[in-house]
Structures are given as structure tokens and as C-alpha cells.
């Protein structure tokens, strides 16, 4: 890392003014668990970092029954998964967050940072996709809302301009059971070889979110399933898998071969459907 300017704005306005001024020469610093690694190995270079952890809106984590959950851009994964309201209303986010790296990383890594790093394997993406999350995005002109479903454009790529800042994630109130299952190489912490999130309610139908099996996290919607009992039906499972396989395109890399990923997708999707088909308000991940 060479000469680096460091800013610590106290307000959203100061932060967006800095990003407007520096554009692609600036990087947002929240948890730093991806940024510092990239700066150190040279895959990221920038003239300045804008530390957003002092901005009140970015630190907000709140739930309202009418509007759902707001996860500010500086909220760490551990803070998310330890929050009682999150555990009560969005246990799938606890499952996803718990699987992310390890406890030390989770004390710094942020939910928004995981999304903005935009790894195809991002652990928070599949669950937030099935929950229908959106991003509240600010620049020095104002704010806009970006549905997560359109956010990712390629490995480590997303739709935002360099001067835009993600203020937080908006997760609507949700009904139904949801679960996130992750296949990794080892029992300890690791990146996902395959990650599958699922949500089912009679109102929304079935939604699946898949990570590490395409250039971006993928959302697959399967409407028209009337009840959770149908999730166990062979013809329904076959139709779901056909739609999933036509939506993904896994590669072979250091963590798994394409063939292994395809096999694990089938295995995990079936397990997710089994979880979602059970009675009871919330699914437990195994």
C-alpha cells in the first residue's frame, strides 16, 4: 500500500461529497475485511479511503413490522446475527451471517460490504435475494432504491457508480419459511462451494437464491406452488431443478469442479425444499 488519504466523515453529506470529488480514486471503508486484503495484495488501488463508520444512518439496525428491517451500511455481520429482532423475524439472515467467515472477521465485516464486494459466493446475497431486499443508495444529489435482484452484474461487479454510497439494505416484512444452506470444503470457516437459500410462502411461491454457481448470485422464482406439501412432490422438485439448472453456470475453480457444484446444487436444493416443506414458522438449518 502506498500513500493513502484517510477521511472519516461524520455525515452522509460529507461522505457523498468526498466520493463525488474523488470518484473512482476513492474506496468506501466499512469493515475493511475485503478492502485491506485487496490493498495489500495490489488487486485494489486507490488514492483515499472514506471511513463511513461514524455516520449515524450507516450504523442503524432497526425493525418495524410495517416496513421490515433496515441494515445500515456499517452494521457488522455479528451485530446483525446477534440482534433479537433479526433472530425473531429473519432467522435465515442469522443462518447466512453465521456461515460467513469466522467470528473475528464478523466483528468487522459488514452486510453491505459483503454485497458490494459482489463475490458470486457472497454469503449474504442468496438470503437477501429471496427476501426481496433492496439497497438504499446515496450520492451528492440524493438517494435512490436499487433492488438487490438487479444489483450484481458480474464477478466483483455491480450497478453502482464510484461516487455512490450504499446507506443500507431494506428488507421487507416477510411471511413463510426460509433457510440458507452452504456447502464448503471444511468444517471450519471457508468460502462457499455452493450456497442455496430458499423462501416459501403460499403468497410469494418459492424463491431460491444461489451463490457460487454463476458469475453473480442468482435468484430463481418458481410461482404457482400452492402449498408447502407440494414441495415434496417429485414432479414439483423436477420442475424446480430444471428451472435452477437453466439459471446457473458453475465454473471449476480451486474450491470445486463444475460437476461437483452441479451435483451439490441438486443435493442442496432438495434439502432446502425439504426444510421449507416442514410445518412450523421457521426452518432450522442443519
Amino acid at each position: 500500500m502506498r500513500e493513502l488519504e484517510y477521511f472519516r466523515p461524520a455525515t452522509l453529506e460529507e461522505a457523498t461529497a468526498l466520493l463525488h470529488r474523488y470518484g473512482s480514486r476513492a474506496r468506501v471503508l466499512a469493515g475493511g475485511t475485503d478492502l485491506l486484503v485487496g490493498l495489500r495484495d495490489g488487486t485494489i488501488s486507490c488514492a483515499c479511503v472514506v471511513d463511513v463508520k461514524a455516520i449515524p444512518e450507516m450504523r442503524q439496525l432497526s425493525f418495524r413490522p410495517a416496513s421490515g428491517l433496515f441494515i445500515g451500511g456499517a452494521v457488522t455481520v455479528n451485530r446483525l446475527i446477534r440482534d433479537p429482532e433479526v433472530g425473531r423475524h429473519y432467522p435465515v439472515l442469522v443462518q447466512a451471517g453465521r456461515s460467513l467467515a469466522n467470528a473475528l472477521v464478523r466483528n468487522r465485516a459488514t452486510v453491505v460490504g459483503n454485497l458490494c464486494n459482489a463475490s458470486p459466493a457472497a454469503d449474504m446475497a442468496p438470503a437477501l435475494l429471496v427476501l426481496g431486499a433492496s439497497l438504499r443508495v446515496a450520492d451528492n444529489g440524493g438517494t435512490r432504491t436499487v433492488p438487490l435482484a438487479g444489483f450484481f452484474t458480474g464477478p466483483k461487479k455491480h450497478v453502482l457508480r464510484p461516487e455512490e454510497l450504499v446507506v443500507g439494505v431494506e428488507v421487507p416484512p416477510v411471511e413463510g419459511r426460509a433457510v440458507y444452506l452452504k456447502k464448503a470444503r471444511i468444517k471450519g470457516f471457508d468460502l462457499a462451494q455452493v450456497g442455496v437459500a430458499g423462501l416459501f410462502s403460499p403468497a410469494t411461491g418459492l424463491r431460491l437464491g444461489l451463490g457460487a454457481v454463476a458469475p453473480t448470485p442468482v435468484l430463481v422464482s418458481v410461482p404457482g406452488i400452492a402449498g408447502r406439501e407440494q414441495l415434496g412432490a417429485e414432479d414439483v422438485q423436477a420442475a424446480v431443478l430444471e428451472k435452477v439448472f437453466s439459471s446457473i453456470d458453475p465454473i471449476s475453480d480451486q474450491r470445486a469442479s463444475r460437476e461437483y457444484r452441479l451435483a451439490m446444487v441438486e443435493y442442496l436444493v432438495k434439502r432446502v425444499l425439504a426444510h421449507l416443506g416442514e410445518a412450523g414458522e421457521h426452518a432450522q438449518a442443519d
Partner: protein
Amino acid sequence: MRRQIRLKVNGEDVSVSVDTHKTLLWLLREELHLKGTKEGCGRGECGACTVILNGEPVNSCLVLAVEADGAEVRTIEGEARDGRLSDLQEAFIRHNALQCGFCTPGMIMSARALLERNPHPTDEEIREAIEGNLCRCTGYLPVLQAIREVAARGARS
């Protein structure tokens, strides 16, 4: 470029000028000469650099020194008091929870932070707390035993 920062390290006030691109790990080892905290990977994957920052255990290799302005940092050097080893240090020795000792400062900081936050952790919670601290020597079981024992007796507050 350099910035003047003020922080508390193991209870003592420190005022130091540091380059903005340097990490908290570098500050502790090279500027403050607190060599107990180790660099294992420099990427947040091994936990050898674990310190307690504002009450939370973190990889100090992933924190810029300037981010610690105004913060409270505790390192392994803060464990022993008045020349006496802490309960965790003594338990680690008694249970053979260290061999080469390289992961040990980080392990103890993770354990200390856990017991302050959760004085009666389950086995699962202890494992989760040290999940980010890799050890090549002990196979982890003696480490779990040491932490379990200190928790059972009631950790030093």
C-alpha cells in the same frame, strides 16, 4: 501521509503519529514494541493477530491504525497483572493448550473477549469464538479444555 492518533492500549494512553496505510497490527508491534501479537497471514484468515478493540476481538491486520483513533485496545501484554499470569494464561499452561505458542496470544484474546461477553458459554459457543484462530500444533482440544475450565470456575472480570 501521517496522522496523529490517540488511543488506549492495555489501559495506558498512547499518542503517536502513524502513516495512514499502516495497520493496527503494525502499530502495536513496530511502533509500540508490543510483540506478543503476531502476524500469521496478514489477510484475516489465521487469527494470530487477534486483539480486543473496543471490547470486540478482531484481526488487527485488517484494521488501519488510524481507525483506532479514540479506541481502546487490549493485547496479550495486558493479560498478566502485577507480574501474575491471568486465569486463562495459567489454564492454557496447565492443559498444554500451547506448543509453539504462535497462535496463543490470539487464542487467549478471543477467549478473553468471549468470557467477558458470555461468562457461561456452551461448547458450541466456545468453538465459534475461536473458529478464527488457527492452530497447527495442539489439535484444539486442550484449548477448549482450558477455556471450559476457566468458564466453569468463573473468569476474572
